[in-house]
């Protein structure tokens, strides 16, 4: 059985639901030698500001049980260099590029989005309002409902590209932020960004990251991320792009059943840069085995009917 893996996000159609996560895949072109980039549903490139940024000093990552902390500090080449130097190659390779947009001010988000809208080859804008590792911008917007609404609606006004705010899990009720994003005109939301965390070298009493704190990713966070996707699915009608510790096809299916239309893979592709065909094959095999023709028919199909507990009452 040939299954339909296509996913619609606003006006954008992805060939399949597997996306390389922003911040974990450079600008995509770094992987051209080891990955068939066009075989991915999309590539979410590293976050871009207007200007170049050097990011934090090393050490920028540290491993933790079943995960890792990072505090890169959004090092990047800036949106103009991206458009000039990276986007043409992505376009030539047939990549659907989701560009992660950062800002220290509302105006910067708008300006970066405007530049990308005028460029050729951008599939969608992912609004980074959730980076835990920079002092100004980002998570400041993503941690208030007004800030989230403000950024999304301002960018919405200047672009016809699909707008996908990337939400932080570092809030009490992530679903209310998804709701604010939907109200502001988002085409989808992506979640979760990393969990603010830290690790300490007890011998030296020094933080293990130069930035002291960083974001936790990897399989350790997956159950929390799945729960958050499930909560958002119940709160909004727009598509959800789910992520957080996905390392194999079953993990991806868990997010899809919880309510994600597509998923992103980050940390796992560090461990296994050739993970992509295995994920797609696993999803195809699952759909065939369950006689589901279209991946879209699996989204949000979690069965929460009460279990048969008659033996308790009898």
């Amino acid at each position, binding site marked *: 059985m040939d299954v339909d893996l296509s996913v619609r996000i606003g006006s954008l159609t992805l060939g399949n639901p597997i996306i390389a996560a922003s*911040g*974990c*895949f*450079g600008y995509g072109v*770094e*992987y051209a*030698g*080891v990955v068939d980039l066009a075989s991915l549903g999309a590539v979410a490139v*590293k976050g871009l500001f207007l200007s170049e940024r*050097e*990011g934090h*000093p*090393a*050490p*920028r*990552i*540290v*491993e933790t*049980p*079943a*995960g*890792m902390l*990072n505090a*890169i500090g959004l*090092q990047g080449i800036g949106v103009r260099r991206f458009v000039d130097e990276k986007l043409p190659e992505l376009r030539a390779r047939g990549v659907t590029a989701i560009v992660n947009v950062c800002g220290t001010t509302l105006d910067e988000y708008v300006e970066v989005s405007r530049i990308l809208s005028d460029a050729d080859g951008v599939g969608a804008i992912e609004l980074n309002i959730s980076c835990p590792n920079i002092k100004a911008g980002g998570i400041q917007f993503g941690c208030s409902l007004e800030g989230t609404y403000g950024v999304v609606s301002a960018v919405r006004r200047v672009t016809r590209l699909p707008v996908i705010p990337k939400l932080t899990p570092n809030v009490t009720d992530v679903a209310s932020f998804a709701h604010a994003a939907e109200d502001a005109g988002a085409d989808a939301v992506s979640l979760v960004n990393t969990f603010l965390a830290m690790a300490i070298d007890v011998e030296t009493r020094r933080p293990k990251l130069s930035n002291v704190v960083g974001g936790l990713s*990897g*399989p*350790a966070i997956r159950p929390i991320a799945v729960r958050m996707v499930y909560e958002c699915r119940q709160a909004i009608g727009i598509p959800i792009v789910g992520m957080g510790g996905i*390392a194999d096809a079953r993990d991806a299916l868990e997010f899809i059943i919880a309510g994600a239309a597509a998923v992103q893979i980050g*940390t796992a*592709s*560090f*461990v*296994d*840069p*050739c993970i992509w065909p295995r994920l797609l094959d696993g999803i195809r095999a699952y759909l065939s085995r369950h006689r589901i023709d279209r991946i879209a028919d699996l989204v949000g199909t979690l069965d929460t009917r009460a279990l048969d507990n008659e033996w308790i009452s009898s």
Partner: protein
Amino acid sequence: MPIDVSAAVVSNRPLSADYNVVALAAPAIAAAAAPGQFVMVKAAPGLDPLLRRPFSVFEVLRDSGGAPSAVSILSKRIGRSTAQLYDLRPGDRVACLGPLGRPFALVDAGTEAWMVAGGVGLAPFMTLAETLRARGVAATLFYGARAAGELFYLDAFRSLGVDLVLSTEDGSRGERGRITAPLDRRLAARAAAAPVMLYACGPEGMLAATAKVAAAHGRPCQVSVERIMGCGLGGCYSCVIPVRGDDGRFHHVRSCIAGPVLMADRVRW
């Protein structure tokens, strides 16, 4: 193009209570590897430890017909990943991605190659020495370790015709102290007109000291750096090091793709 293979362990030779050399059956990587390049290795499946670790290609091993058949890595047990590597047995499978990174720039026979190794920083110099000697380059290895028991593969370098200058921190073999002291003296004694290329690998403090000595004597120096690395492919931006660009300013470059070999005078130590 890097290749990712599930490589069988051909052999695992302990050199001491902490050091070992693991040979991995990876013919395609062995055939493609250039001196100074590295592989990303995960010694065992599982989530803890999660990430791969970078290792210089130590040896390119050949089958009886002379074709490249395996690469070996020199490891020092310092954490859980290296403990897993230490305990590998022949036939075990290891995820091995490579060859990665920018290799050493080679010199021709008119220039002498002086390799400066600290501890496990010996790793990239076996293949470099082989390659340089095959080009007729006179080569010297300055090799420092904590103690005599941590100086390895001396006969292998000797048999390649490499001169050895040794030091140990405890004085149990060679000169007592840091390897940069004899390096400094020998550079001072060498005629300015006689070209030397320095190659260094080891702890960053040693690399910084070597860079300083090289600069003091006006000699070019290539260093192989090791920073905490997430992916080895340029995706994660973890392994950055400040390097002076053509604009005269320092920028964070990814040591996995801009390095691991860098010109020492460009690095801010």
